């Protein structure tokens, strides 16, 4: 799941201040699950923007912002979008970018896209994959250091972890602590002895 959070409302309002007809598009996949782009959030956003004195001409929740496939599809879904001079997208960055391919007015993001992660109930788990394009996660027992270690270290921890927590964010477990625990649990500590070569950073 793509993890996003809402931008502060004041930032959204600043972007839309001089617009006359704003159209809002949500997304019923990741953004809806995280309550940053589903039906209720699109409605709430619409009324908040109107209350702040900016005209909103409509809103819709796309099945998935990232799989909207054409301008015609979008206009069929939401005919009013033709009259908009700005589109506010309540989805992740890729959803927002995809929508921008099909509309000829300013497209604004309502969310900040943060990582590829998961949700356990309401709890968001960040940074499970960094989309490196060469998956070697099995070498680490399914805990990816490219994604979970801020230094992307492939051969073991830095000297900065303290009490099992990460140097960069003491709220977070050190990725290498998790890797060790997991490999110990599945009886694959042998995987740790291998020297891992640097990845080619071909995918950007």
């Amino acid at each position, binding site marked *: 799941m793509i993890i996003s959070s809402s931008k502060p409302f004041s930032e959204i309002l600043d972007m839309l201040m001089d617009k006359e007809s704003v159209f809002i598009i949500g997304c019923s996949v990741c953004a809806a699950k995280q309550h940053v782009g589903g039906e209720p959030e699109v409605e709430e956003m619409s009324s908040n923007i109107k209350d702040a004195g900016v005209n909103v001409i409509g809103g819709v929740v796309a099945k998935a912002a990232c799989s909207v496939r054409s301008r015609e599809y979008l206009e069929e879904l939401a005919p009013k979008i033709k009259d908009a001079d700005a589109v506010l997208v309540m989805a992740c960055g890729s959803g927002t970018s995809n929508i921008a391919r099909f509309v000829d007015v300013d497209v604004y993001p309502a969310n900040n896209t943060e990582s590829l992660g998961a949700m356990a109930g309401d709890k968001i788990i960040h940074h499970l994959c960094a989309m490196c394009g060469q998956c070697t996660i099995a070498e680490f027992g399914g805990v990816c250091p490219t994604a979970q270690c801020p*230094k*992307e270290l492939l*051969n*073991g921890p830095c*000297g*900065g972890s303290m009490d099992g927590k990460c*140097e*960069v964010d003491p709220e977070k477990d050190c990725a*290498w602590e998790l890797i060790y625990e997991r490999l110990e649990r599945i009886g694959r500590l042998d995987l740790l002895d291998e020297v891992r070569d*640097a990845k080619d950073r071909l995918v950007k």
Partner: protein
Amino acid sequence: MLSTFNDALNSDRFIVTAEVAPPKGTDISATLEDADLIRGWVDAINITDNQHAVMRMSPVVVGKLLMDAGHEVIVQFTCRDRNRLALQSDILAASVLGIRNLCVMTGDYPTKGDHVGAKPVYDLDSVQLLSLITKMMDGHDMAGNELAGAPSFTIGAVSNTEAARRMQMIKLKKKIDAGAQFIQTQAVYDVEGFGEFMDSFTHPDVPVIAGIIPLRSAGMARFMNGNVPGIRVGDELISRMEDAEDPVQEGLEIAAESIRELRKMCRGVHMMPIGGNSNTPKLLEMAGISALQ
């Protein structure tokens, strides 16, 4: 003639290294003065690389300046600020400037320093960087291209000293397999714990140089316990610091006692005093280590 750090490693002498920081700005005088304080006392001077992610002058250049002033240097290379192209360029540059020793480490994250928004690079990790330097010394760059003139270095790495941190110990072994010829450690206050580290160290032939940071106050000790990974100052030392009339002197006493003990356990000590080396010769004398010839 000045003997090299490699000569010292190959001798049976107890080794002393010490840290000197490059300047923040173009005025090199304080760095040269700090190095001069320990002239004749140390086998080599480590020059830090944007230590704690605080921007300072390039350690390669400072290394050259200190060599010109007659010092043997170990230039530190972190993985934080340069991708594989820039690292290799600087490794070649260090070699052509006559620098003979490198010490490789991951590097503190940019958010720890004074440019918190800097892009963290970490294109290679410390094990991969050691392998790369080894490969360059064999005459090839990372992509396998032949070098017109191969660099030659004595290369080292760093380690914490907690034997119980098994993952750290596995990584240390990888560093040595990748070519590390000496190990400089985080500051040691728990000599017994250090003994356990040495016992579980898989390469008794690789010289270990134990880190020393003289305490300056009980508050500093408590701060390090809470904030500096890999450092553990025991309660007994903290109360000694608390009760001391002259805490700086007491910190030196404690460090001298540690050095005397460490001398029996490892190949040398690495001085990393807070605020410069003004007390380093005095401390070494207190520990019974005499100046070099």
